[in-house]
């Protein structure tokens, strides 16, 4: 029962008044950010990260995890009340959440979303607790060769499973990795890629600068055009009777909820997948398994429960590889990873040995964050209805200010603020041209690890490239990577051989 002892220690950390307060603040901020159309967990974490210096590192990561959680809950709010997904992860929630609101059941839909998120979050945190320590134990055996293979695997999942244009995905991975090499060479210490001889580039390009640029400035520029007219908010009233009815209704759908949670957790672990596909898959499967599939899309409560359990479970799932292996499972966890490195905590198996207080404090705070999120969510629904009426330009102007000041604060260099604007505009144009942003950010965060592990392996093996495939674990990872990488090509060959008319893409 070593696990329970660890968890109990963790709760001793997470139940301190400071950390409880942080969790409540974090989920509230996260709920608001998630509820704003267009802004999701990744934007929230990117914009808030620079100002987390206000609390000690271990609390800062709890704050960010709480924001992450809150944003996952919050996404459903605008999906239901506005019919616009609050974040891409809540797209599937609009399918039935919006019709429910139009039928006058907005309150019930919100209750179902909040409670389902709670169930999904809780089941996945239990799974997380069970898997974390064993996985970290396995990962302890990893050397640089395995690390390199694992990073490679993370990138190839984008190519094989990402679903975006393969060439454009590859482009973004390479761009992110190339940007990560700016600054001083890891091994020789010589400067490289110092553009225009600007001294600011010597310290490299911080992931924070790219994230604030792409997910702060870029995202707002992107939403300027999609949100020309003020959306109409469906009013929602909440009564205890409805709450009771909602919970009773939810009780009938344990199969959908547990299935959605488990599916979400495992899909969330994959770097290329994450909460959005998990929610869509869960919705699809719930419809397949339902006795009344014809009611889906017309406002059935099951259609809200399925995606909401799943996207919350996926957000927990994506924390697992980040914490145990040091490989983030989503762009948001990539930012959390970058933040941890900034605070001097190196994610990976050693963290479980060197900083058990921190690890178990974080895990147990996921439990408290879940409870806090569901309570704050239900209590503040009237406030969200009011906040969603806020004109979009007010939100934009405040996000711009936060991006500029937040980008300046960590390094206190105007150089970084200019870079943020550059990445914002560049990211906006690339995104408009259907280049995926997640691999870019992940590549910038993982780039240094990838290069370091690659070159360390070669130095210790006297330049023997075969070292990567000779070691059993890294060989397996490489083999899976190759399969993922070839997957899109196989599809092409298959279509070419079959000579079938290709469906419209």
């Amino acid at each position, binding site marked *: 029962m070593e696990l329970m002892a660890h968890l109990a220690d963790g709760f001793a950390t997470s139940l301190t008044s400071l950390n409880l307060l942080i969790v409540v603040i974090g989920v509230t901020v996260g709920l608001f950010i998630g509820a704003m159309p267009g802004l999701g967990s990744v934007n929230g974490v990117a914009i808030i990260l620079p100002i987390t*210096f206000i609390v000690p590192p271990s609390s800062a990561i709890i704050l960010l995890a709480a924001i992450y959680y809150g944003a996952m809950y919050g996404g459903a709010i605008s999906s239901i009340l506005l019919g616009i997904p609050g974040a891409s992860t809540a797209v599937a929630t609009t399918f039935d959440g919006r019709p429910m609101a139009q039928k006058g059941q907005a309150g019930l839909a919100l209750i179902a979303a909040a409670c389902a998120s709670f169930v999904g979050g809780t089941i996945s945190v239990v799974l997380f607790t069970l898997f974390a320590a064993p996985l970290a134990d396995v990962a302890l055996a990893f050397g640089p060769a395995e690390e390199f293979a694992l990073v490679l695997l993370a990138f190839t999942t984008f190519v094989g499973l990402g679903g975006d244009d393969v060439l454009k995905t590859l482009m973004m991975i*390479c761009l992110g990795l190339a940007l990560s090499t700016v600054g001083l060479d890891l091994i020789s210490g010589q400067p490289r890629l110092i553009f225009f001889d600007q001294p600011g580039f010597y310290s490299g390009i911080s992931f924070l600068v790219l994230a604030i640029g792409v997910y702060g400035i870029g995202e707002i520029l992107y939403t*300027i055009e999609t949100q020309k007219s003020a959306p109409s908010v469906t009013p929602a009233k909440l009564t205890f009777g409805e709450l009771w009815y909602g919970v009773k209704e939810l009780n009938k759908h344990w199969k959908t909820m547990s299935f959605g949670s488990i599916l979400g957790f495992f899909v969330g672990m994959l770097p290329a997948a994450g909460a959005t596909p998990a929610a869509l898959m869960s919705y699809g499967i719930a419809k397949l398994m339902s006795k009344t599939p014809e009611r889906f899309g017309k406002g059935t409560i099951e259609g809200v429960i399925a995606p909401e359990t799943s996207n919350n479970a996926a957000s927990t799932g994506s924390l697992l590889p980040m914490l145990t292996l040091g490989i983030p499972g989503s762009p948001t966890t990539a930012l959390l990873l970058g933040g941890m490195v900034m605070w001097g905590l190196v994610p990976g198996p050693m963290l479980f040995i060197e900083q058990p207080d921190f690890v178990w404090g974080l895990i147990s705070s996921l439990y408290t964050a879940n409870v806090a999120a569901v309570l704050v969510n239900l209590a503040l629904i009237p406030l969200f209805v009011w906040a969603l009426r806020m004109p979009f330009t*007010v939100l934009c102007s405040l996000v711009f200010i936060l991006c500029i000041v937040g980008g300046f*604060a960590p390094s206190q260099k*105007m150089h970084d603020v200019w870079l943020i604007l550059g990445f914002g505009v560049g990211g906006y144009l690339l995104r408009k041209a259907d280049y995926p942003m997640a691999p870019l950010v992940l590549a910038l965060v993982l780039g240094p690890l990838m290069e370091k592990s690659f070159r360390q392996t070669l130095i210790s093996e006297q330049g023997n490239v075969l070292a990567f495939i000779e070691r059993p674990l890294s060989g397996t990872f490489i083999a899976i990577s190759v399969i993922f990488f070839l997957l899109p090509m196989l599809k092409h060959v298959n279509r070419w051989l079959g000579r079938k008319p290709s469906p419209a893409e």
Partner: protein
Amino acid sequence: MLTADRVIAAALMVLSAYFMWHATALPIGWNGMTGGPGGGAFPFWLSAIMFVTAGAIIVRSFRIKFDNPDTFFDQETLRAVLVVIGSLVVTITLMPWAGAYIALPLFLLWYLKVFGKHGWTLTLLLTLGTPVFLFFFFEVTLKILLPKGFTEPLFIPLYARFF
């Protein structure tokens, strides 16, 4: 849409060529002495892949038969986006010279009143409230000094009061 796709891919090609040129400052080949690639190898070969990928995107764009009828930018969007980017450029240029406490409120005033067409009450509330919040949050609590430019002397009494 296809034209925009080509222009962006071409721009990425130029960018990767620029990266490659920069990377050649360090050895890009195999370093026989230590084993493994030189310091410039990673950026160089990654940029090379980018170059080839961008080329492939351009080639592909000529082989697609049907163009997506959507235009990349409509007039209205392009104007709004350019105006916002322009205002951000002005704000960031002003910051080191006139200080954050002049540049940021000016941006808010412009964005809310002129661009967003909001009433004076809301505009003034946010324009005056935001700098006060920034001062207390960043300077007083976090001890992070924002750029002040020529307004620096005005803050000396405030420093004396709060530090």
